[in-house]
Structures are given as C-alpha cells and as structure tokens.
C-alpha cells in the first residue's frame, strides 16, 4: 500500500495542488508534477467540490501513482485557503510547495527549488513566474533578474510587490512554527499569507530560474457590464485582505513598514481599480468612494501619495479627500472628456487641478506638469502658395477666455518659422509661397496666460490625410510623415542633381557646427594657445566688445564710431557671439567670442574697450590698455555692496576683472564713488560722461528716422517706451508684463504706440506671442540708445535706463509695483521715491492715469530737472571724443 510507504518514509517535498472546475487543465498540471526531475516528493491534490469532471480526472490520474493522493472536499469552500490548508494538513514533507489546478511547473522546478532551499537554509525561496499572455517573467527586472540569498524583507521591501504564494518553496518547520496558514473565508488570501511570510521569515532567497507557468486566459468578456456588480465584491475582498495584513503588521511590530506596504497597495492594487473606473456603474462608484476613503484614512495620510506619478497622486488625493465630484472630473479630464466644472488653474507656469473645496495644502498634491490639450486637423490642402487645414482645438476644464493659439511651421534644417494667418471658419492658412528646402514640421502653440504650450502635430491628430505633392518652380513640396509619426511638409529640389547639391550643403553646415566644438580642445589649439601670448602687442589695434558679445551697442559702439569719423590709423576688432548676424559700419574685423581668433586679438591688441568684462578670456599684459566703460549708473547694490555677499569664487572673478581695468569711464561723481567702492577698484576713473549718451545730446535726426523705419513706426505717433527690468525671482513677472501691455494697448489713445523692450532672456519668449498692432516689440533691437530718441515718454522701474533717458528731458513714469520687495531683495543706493525723475506708480491704473493726463505728468518736470542735474551734468555730447583724446590719441 502506498500509504504504508508514506508512513515509513517522509518525502523531502510535498506539493499541494488545488483544483476547482479545472477539467481542461488539471491533467496538464498533474503531468507537470509527475514529470519533475526531482522525485523524492508527494503530491496532494485537493478538489474543492468541482462541478465538472475535475474530480474524476484527478482520481483517474492519481490511481496508479503511489506518491499522488487525492482529497475531495465535501462542499465548495469558495476560495483557495481551505483547500490549501487541507493540503498542508495532509502532507508530511520537509518542504512545501503550492500549485493551482490551471497552472503548471517547469520540469526542473522542484529540483531547483529544493536545491536552493537546502543550500541557503532560508525559510522560503522564491522562483520566477512566467505569465502565458506574454511569456515575460513577473517582476523580472525589479526582483528576479539575479540570485539574491538570505534576504530579509526589511532590506528589500520591493519584494512586497510579489504577493504570490505559488512560486515559492517553504520549510514546513517555518510554517508550523508560526502556525502560518491561509486565512479562510476571504479572497486574496495570498496578500495575507505571503505578506505574513515575508515579515515572519528571518531570511528568504530568490533564484533567477523559471519555475511556474501562470496561465493567463485573455477573456474579452471579463469587463462586460454583467460582471460589474461582482466586481465590487472583488474590490471589497481585496480591502478585507489588506486589512488583515495591516492588522498583522500592527500586532507584530511591523508598523514601521506600513509605509512600504501602502506603497505597494497604491502602485499595484488600487491602480487596477482607478484604471477601470469609467467602466463602473453608479452604484459601484458610490460604494467604491465610501470604502476607499475609509480605508485610506485607516492606514495612511496624504503624504503617501506625494512621490507617485502625477495622475495617481491626484486621483488618490481626491479619493483621500472624499471629493467625488473632483475625482469624476479628473477621470474625465485625463480621458479627454469635458468636466462638470473648470478645474484647471495656474499660478505662473505651474498648473493645478482644483478640488471642490478650498484648502491650504491642496496644491502640493494637485500639481500638474501641463494642461491637457486635444486637437484634430482635417481638410488639409496644399498648393504652390497656400497650405491650409481645418482645426478643432480643445482645452478642457480651463477658462477659454484666457486661451489663444496659433500654428507654426518650422523648417528643421534651416530653423525658419512660418506662422499661421487667422482665417474664417476654423480654417488655418499659411503662405507657402516662399518655403525653402527642408522639412517643415507643424506645431500648435497654445498660449494660456503667458504659458506657451507647443504641441507637435502627429499623423494621429489628422483625419483622412491624403498624400499630396505639388510642384512650385524648381521645388517639390510633399506631405510626409516621419518614423515618429510627425507630420511635415517636405520641400525638395525637383531635380536629382539639385537634391544632391542641397544635401551636401546641409552636411557642410552640420559639420561646421560640429567642428567648432571638436577643435576647442584639440592639441593643435592648445599648442597655439601657448605661443600666441608671446607675440608682440600691436600698437594700433583696438579690440571692442559690448555685453559679452551679445550686441553691437553701448559706449564701445560710440567710441568706435567716433574713431571711424576721425583720421585714425587704427585697426578695429569686434567680438560677438554670433558675428554673422551683426551689421555695423566701418571695416572692423568681426570675430566669434572665445574663439581662437578672438584669443589672438586679445593678446595682440593694444587697446581693449568693453562695457562688462573680458579679462577672464586672456591674461592682460602690462603693455595693453583696458578701458572699462561700464554700462549704466548703478541703482541697485552691486559687487561688494550686495545684500548677500557673492561667493568667494565670484568675488575672485570680479577681482580678476577689475584688476585688469586701466580706466573706468563714469557718467557722474555718484557713479565714480559707487563703483570704486562696490568693485574695490583703485585705478583711474575718467569722469567724461557716457560716450553712449552723446547722441542723446546731439539727437541726430537720421538715427531717429532709421529706428522709425526699422520698427515700422509712423513719425506722427506718440511713442511710449516700456522697459521693465527682469525679476528673476518671480516666475509670474513675464505674465504680468504681458497682461499689462495688453491692458495699456486697449487704454492708450489712437495716436500712441507702445515700444516694448524686455530683458534679452525674455525676448525669445515674447517673440512667440502675437501682440496687438499698437504694441511694437523692440526687445531684439540692437541699441537701446536709438530707441530713446524715438520715445516721447518712458515707463520703466529700477533700470539704469532712466539715467540716460532723463538727459532728453522727456517725461518718465516709474512703475514700481514691487518697490518694497525689490528694495528688500536687491537694496538701493539712495531713496528712490525721493529722487525719482517722475511719478512712482504702484499700480497700472496709476500709470494709465499719468499717460492720459499729460498735465499731471508735467508737474514732475522739476524732479526731472533735479535728477538730471545730479546724475547727468557731465553729459555734453562729447564724451567719446574726450575718451579718445585722453587715452588713444594722447602724447
């Protein structure tokens, strides 16, 4: 008798098989056990009162196999726990494994597992699971990629994500010692059993061997409507199981690890249900919200969500708040459906989803990287000079009054950008007549309160896309979709030879770009750089730079032009960041800043004339003369005077610069004093006035006309120059400027235009916006001095602009809405309100008042006069020539 055998010899391994209505699969399961390479084992098959042929098949199979035993439960237990516990009770092996009646083992599973548990002496060992829907290994990368021996759950809490009981081999003594059995009467028994096992085990191990095939039957009906009622019980059961586990942790000093357990619950369990939320019926949803709200508050607080992915964080936070309306809206929102209320709002560039009730801490949890923007395109038309389409743009849950958008086509090869024309009936039009070779990619640009959201158009955004190709002269334009599904208009030369030529050109350009980077560290260059400084200094070479090579402007420019006027034998060199884009008079050599050429001239030119700093680029020699013109009368504290002292490194750099200066040009005694103090500068100061301000005294009409032409401003207009400073601490400031400009645009009279001058960091941003006709963006205009001539009135804040402009004796409005904050942050050298050359306004309404009542503005003429007297008395229109006389032409 087989039972005698069992009594006499205890097998090493017992495998418990449970089966309920598995007639299709049970034989395969048993065969996979029978064929195991490991033989010292017994198999106990527990049939949970199946209603199909399962029981019969089991009996048939075990009948001639002495180490197989069948147990038939007298009634259905409704779960896996009772059969498994029954199985355990009927086994005698030193080790125990479990398998379900529809899954199977690999042929070496038992051998590998027994080997591992004997080798490691762990309480249990886990092996790899393969799911048959994709044949990928369950948590392969995260957990099962390599062998890990003798772990404790407290050092690898990620293991909690694997809550299966079937892929493991257990020491029978471990199960018995802790009376660890499957909890009867509940579903999701594995969550409890495996969870307990993790925390009870002193050690467990992982082997990277495939052990268990988990049969996943893809069933299309699984989510059908009839199943929904059942599903809520399913959710309830899961929560019940989790509560058992939570209870266990509490009672077994595992509370420290509740956080990790919660993490798994949120990332795995709860996610399954929020993913399916749209499929639930009303009754389900109601119950779901009640239960999950209750459960979340039992075991965690809202900070459990803070590191989750955006969508999960927002969803769970709303569940935690019990805010069903907002939750439903957010689900709708992320599925591209309209929401009941407008819930998306922003502060500056940061977006949030709004819960139903206000709360102080909401924003931490409701942050969104960007608003969802949906759009579709249809009826694409392309001919020789027109590209058009119909578009439907959807920005959900946002007040659409604040949303504007335009479309752009960007040539990726040349960087050229075409912007759409406004047209009727949702039809967007582009003038396609002057497209050049290259691929033009189409983007939607949505402007919401100063935040520009750019979306590249994909083929999936387009309905019924036709392949269109048109000839236009020597070019062929065709609709093309690239590998990444982006839509473009490809413009190519029609003939093959031209195509080749163009491609070669492109390559040359691309390589030119690469070369520069490559050579910067080449040994040749290093070699040359050692020798260049040894070359003699050339007495008649003058090197200029303005604002680190960003512009052709400021005092260096005016000194240069003054030199051009005279009969001089100098050779001039200018350094620029983009020398090709700068236009200037005279025969100066243009070099790229920080290039080898620039280094050469830095070393050989006798004179350096600059307004910011270039002493870091090369060692200035004794024989060389550095004229520092500086770039404005200081208002805010600088250098050593700053409220928070710069780092030692920054101060070292500053010292290197100021040590190199031979002459510092100053517009007034006040500046001389401040700069000497702030920069710790002990060299010679030339109080000549600023060369750049010469034109403000001379006021040449030709320059004014040139500026008018270039900016397209009729001469009969009143020009208001608006030049706010850059507030790097305030992400909202750009939006504020934009809003206020729009406001001014509406309020000023028809005879006026606003000339907008922003910090160069913002000039790119502003150029992407469509501005009203009476606003002219002059942020990219090279020389601000020329704009002054044009302007009848200046609005500014803390900028040195006011010191120059005041020389014109034209009205100035100071718009300082954040005067206190600015003073606190930056600090000023004098009482601003007292000395200001015009009214200091706190609100834009005040500014408007002064704009529209010039009489009131005239009342400030006296302050303006005082201001000019104090800061501009040296300006006589001859500063440039004075500088030249004193330094370059002395003798």
């Amino acid at each position, binding site marked *: 008798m087989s039972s005698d055998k069992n009594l006499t010899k205890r097998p090493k391994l017992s495998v418990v098989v449970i089966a309920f209505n598995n007639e*299709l699969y049970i*034989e*395969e399961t048993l*065969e*996979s056990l029978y*064929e195991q390479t490991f033989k010292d084992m017994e198999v106990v098959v527990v049939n949970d009162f199946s209603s199909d042929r399962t029981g019969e098949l089991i009996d048939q199979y075990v009948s001639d196999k002495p180490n197989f035993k069948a147990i038939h439960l007298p009634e259905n237990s409704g779960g896996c726990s009772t059969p498994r516990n029954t199985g355990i009770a009927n086994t005698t092996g030193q080790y125990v494994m479990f398998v379900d009646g529809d899954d*199977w083992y690999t*042929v070496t599973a038992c051998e590998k597992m027994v080997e591992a548990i004997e080798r490691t002496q762990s309480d249990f060992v886990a092996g790899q699971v*393969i799911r*048959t829907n994709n*044949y990928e290994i369950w948590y392969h990368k995260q957990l099962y990629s390599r062998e890990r021996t003798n772990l404790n759950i407290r050092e690898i809490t990620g293991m909690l994500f694997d809550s299966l009981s079937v892929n493991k081999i257990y020491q029978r003594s471990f199960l018995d010692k802790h009376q660890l059995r499957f909890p009867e009467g509940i579903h999701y028994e594995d969550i409890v059993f495996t969870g307990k096992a993790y925390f009870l085990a002193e050690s467990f191990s992982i082997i990277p061997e495939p052990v268990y*095939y988990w049969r996943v039957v893809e069933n299309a009906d699984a989510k059908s409507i009839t199943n929904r009622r059942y599903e809520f019980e399913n959710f309830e059961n899961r929560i019940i199981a989790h509560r058992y586990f939570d209870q266990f942790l509490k009672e077994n000093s595992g509370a420290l690890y509740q956080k990790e357990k919660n993490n798994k619950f949120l990332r795995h369990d709860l996610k399954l249900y929020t993913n399916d939320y749209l499929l639930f019926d009303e009754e389900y949803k109601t119950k779901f919200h009640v239960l999950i709200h209750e459960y979340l508050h039992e075991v965690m607080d809202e900070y459990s969500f803070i590191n989750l992915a955006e969508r999960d964080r927002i969803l769970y936070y709303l569940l935690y708040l019990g805010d069903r309306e907002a939750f439903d809206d957010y689900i709708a929102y992320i599925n591209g459906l309209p929401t009941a209320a407008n819930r998306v709002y922003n502060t500056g560039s940061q977006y949030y989803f709004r819960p139903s009730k206000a709360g102080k801490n909401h924003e931490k949890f409701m942050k969104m990287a960007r608003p969802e923007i949906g759009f579709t395109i249809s009826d694409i*038309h392309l001919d020789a000079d027109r590209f058009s389409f119909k578009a439907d743009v959807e920005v959900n849950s946002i007040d659409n009054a604040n949303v504007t958008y335009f479309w752009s086509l960007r040539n990726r090869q040349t960087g050229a950008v075409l912007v759409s024309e406004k047209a009727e009936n949702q039809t967007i039009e582009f003038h396609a007549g002057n497209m050049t070779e290259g691929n033009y990619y189409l983007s939607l640009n949505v402007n919401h309160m100063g935040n520009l959201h750019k979306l590249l158009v*994909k*083929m*999936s955004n*387009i309905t*019924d*896309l*036709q*392949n*269109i*190709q048109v000839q236009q002269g020597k070019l062929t334009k*065709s*609709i*093309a*979709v*690239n*590998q*990444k*599904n982006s839509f473009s208009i490809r413009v190519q030369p029609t003939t*093959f030879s031209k195509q080749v030529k163009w491609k070669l050109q492109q*390559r040359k350009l691309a*390589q030119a770009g690469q070369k520069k980077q490559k050579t910067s560290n080449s040994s040749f260059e290093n070699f040359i750089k050692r020798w260049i400084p040894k070359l003699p200094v050339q007495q008649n070479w003058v090197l200029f730079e303005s604002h680190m090579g960003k512009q052709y402007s400021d005092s260096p420019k005016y000194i240069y032009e003054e030199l051009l006027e005279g009969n001089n034998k100098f050779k001039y060199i200018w350094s620029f960041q983009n020398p090709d884009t700068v236009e200037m008079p005279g025969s100066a050599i243009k070099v790229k800043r920080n290039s080898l050429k620039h280094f050469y001239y830095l070393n050989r030119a006798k004179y350096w004339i600059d307004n910011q700093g270039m002493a870091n680029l090369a060692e200035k020699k004794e024989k060389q003369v550095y004229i520092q013109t500086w770039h404005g009368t200081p208002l805010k504290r600088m250098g050593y005077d700053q409220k928070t002292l710069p780092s030692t490194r920054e101060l070292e750099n500053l010292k290197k610069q100021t040590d190199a200066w031979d002459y510092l040009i100053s517009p007034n005694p006040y500046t001389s004093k401040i700069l000497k103090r702030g920069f710790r500068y002990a060299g010679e100061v030339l109080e000549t006035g600023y060369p750049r301000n010469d034109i403000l005294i001379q006021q040449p009409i030709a320059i004014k006309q040139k500026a008018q032409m270039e900016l397209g401003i009729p001469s009969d207009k009143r020009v208001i120059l608006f030049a706010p400073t850059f507030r790097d601490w305030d992400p909202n400031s750009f939006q504020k400027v934009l809003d206020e400009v729009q406001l001014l645009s509406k309020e000023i009279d028809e005879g006026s235009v606003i000339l907008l001058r922003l910090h160069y960091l913002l000039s790119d941003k502003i150029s992407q916006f469509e501005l009203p006709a009476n606003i002219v963006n002059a942020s990219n205009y090279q020389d601000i001095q020329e704009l002054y001539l044009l302007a009848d009135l200046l609005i500014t804040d803390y900028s040195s602009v006011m010191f120059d402009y005041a020389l014109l004796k034209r009205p100035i409005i100071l718009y300082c809405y954040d005067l206190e904050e600015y003073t606190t942050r930056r600090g000023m050298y004098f009482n601003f309100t007292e000395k200001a050359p015009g009214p200091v306004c706190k609100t834009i309404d005040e500014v408007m008042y002064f704009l529209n009542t010039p009489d009131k503005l005239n009342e400030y003429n006296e302050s303006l006069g005082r201001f000019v007297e104090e800061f501009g008395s040296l300006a006589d229109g001859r500063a440039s020539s004075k500088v030249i006389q004193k330094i370059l032409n002395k003798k």
Partner: protein
Amino acid sequence: MESKNIVFVINEYNNHGGAQRVASILTDQFRADGHNVAILSINEQKNVPSYFDSETPVKVLHRDNYRPPKDIELSSNLKQMKFMKVSKELKRRRRLVQQRKEVKEFFEAYGDEEVFVIVIQVYGMQWLLPILYKPNIKIIGQSHESVKAAQSSRRYKRILSQYRQVSKFLLLTHNDAEHFEQQGFMNTGVMYNPSPFRQLPNSVDLYRKKKIISSGRLIPDKGFDVLIEAFAKAAADVPDWTLHIYGDGPAQDDLENLIRIFELEDRVFLEGQTENMEAALKDSSFFVLSSKAEGLPMSLIEAQSCGLPCISTDCAPGIREIVEEYQNGLIAPVGDVHLLARHIKKLAKDQDLFMAYSENAYESSMKFNKHVITQEWYELFEELGGRSIEQ
C-alpha cells in the same frame, strides 16, 4: 465587377515562403475573376520555379540579382579610406535612383487607371516611395509576421518609416494591428491569409493514419529540433505513430543527426519539399508547429482546412487566431519540449478528443476560405477606390 489592375510587390517572387504562397493563391483568384494581375519582384532566384501561374507577367527589378547593402554614411567612411565600402554605397544610391525611375515608368504604363499595389513585404517600399503621391495608385502594405518577429530585424524600422502613408497597412492579427495603432498608424487593417484548399475530413480515417505532420523551411527558427525531441519523449507512449516533416533547408543534416541520436530513423522522416501539400495533409492525423517566430502561419491554416487538429508553440499572436486552445488544438510555450510531448501524447492517445478537435478545426478554418478572403480583398479595393483624391 469591372476589371481591376493589381500589382504584387515581392522580394523574390520564386521563393517558397508563406507570403509568396498567399500572393499566388490571391493571384489565381483575382485572375479567375478577370482582373489584371502583375508581379513586381525586386530579385529572383535563378532557374527556380515559382508558385505563380506562368501567364502572370513578372517584372524583376534587379535582373543581375543585385542586392543593395545596408545603407551607410559616406563621409566618415571616406575619411577612414574605406573605398570599397564607399563605392558600394555610391552604387547603392545610384541604383536606387535608377530603379525608382524604372518603377515609376512601370506604373506610368497604366496611365490614369486605378492600380492596387499590394506590397507583401516592406522591403519593396523603398522603390515605391515616389509613387505614393500618384492619386490613381493605391498602395496596400502588408507584414506577414508578428510585431515581435519584425522587431528582430530591420523590417520594423522600415515599417515605421515607410508604411505610415500607404492607403492601407494590413496586419495578420488584431493584436499586431493594435500595436501599430498605438504607434500612431491611422491606416491599419487585418487580413487573414487564404487557404488554397478545403477538404471535409473523415476524422476517423485521419486518426487511423497515426501520422504527425509538420512543414516549413529546415532552419533553426522553425524549431524542428524541439519537435523531434518532444516526439522522442512521447514515442514510447505512442508506439504506432510516426512524424513526417516536409520542407528542405540548411538544417537538414543537423536534424538527421538528431533523429539518429534518438534512434528514431523508423519513426521520424524528413520528407523534403513537396509540390502537393494537400495530399500530404490528407494522409496525416494532426499537425505540429514548433516555430520560434511566425505571423499567421499558412501551414496551420492549410492543416485546419483539411480537418487536422493542430498543436502549436505560442510563438505569435496569429497562432491563437487559428488554434483555439482545447477546442481544436493545443498550445505550448516556445521551446517547451515537455509540454509539447505531453500534448502529442494526449492527442495521439485520446481518439474522442482527436475527433472533436478535428471537426472543430475544419469548421473554424472557414474564416480562411479563399473565397471569403478574396471577397474581403474586393471590399477593401472598393473602400480605397471610393476615397476622394485631392490633387
């Protein structure tokens, strides 16, 4: 129905792969219905007969059997003075331009008439790109393999860049089509392969043959080694049964060795290539496919059409579109010798099970009936022909 112009674009029209078989079956159907069919073949094999009717016109693009090398970057190779490589690349580019022109001329011969171009392998697309913009030409791209199989080669990238703008991109299964929809394709569809024949089986007779059949090129990808090993494991339990493998290829010697090692010379037979698969199937009991990668294998479709139950590895989503597990066949993970052996034993030993599977198989194969599939092609032509063209 008015006569339509249909062109198949094939890598090698006289290769004996599944895709060529499909194209030849459809060609016969289309021609029988009075349509005008031509083949545009990129290369050809010398002196090898094809599946196609000799009256079907075939244009071969590379008469000299030129095979373009992988495209390379010119300048970097020039700098490294790899002149051979550079000259090959220059030749490739010259030939591409030349042959594109030739293809253009080939289609210009149709004038303004509507032409349906069925590109059965994506490789041929590189010569067709210029005709994408001809409004009278409707390109239908196909991929006769699973996404996973395509991803193991350069074909996947070619699909991503060259099939987005064709009129229709046909996959073999919904699963594969879904994958490309997720990649943003707007033109996907599903088209099954047609079975060239159907034969109502006498299941009892089939079972009595006690023959297991398999077919395909003898290459490692087809996994015949696994099949032979699985059969070896089962052999003792199913003493009267034999295994017959049809096809030829480079792995023949290795497989013969394997048979000798298992001492199964009188049980396992490498039958070579057959002209008449139908006859071979009718003379067998059930079919086993042991491949590592597939699309929607013709061999399974043909076997089912003769009422043979099928055992297959789970090597592509297409398998489950043909074999319904525990209804008309059995499925095992790729390379799982043990389960494959158990399946073989099960089907060989259980006549009732065999009979049920056999009848279900025949019924289920109706969806691959060549008349059904041909009709679906005509519906597709109607759909594409009906689209308005903007010039």
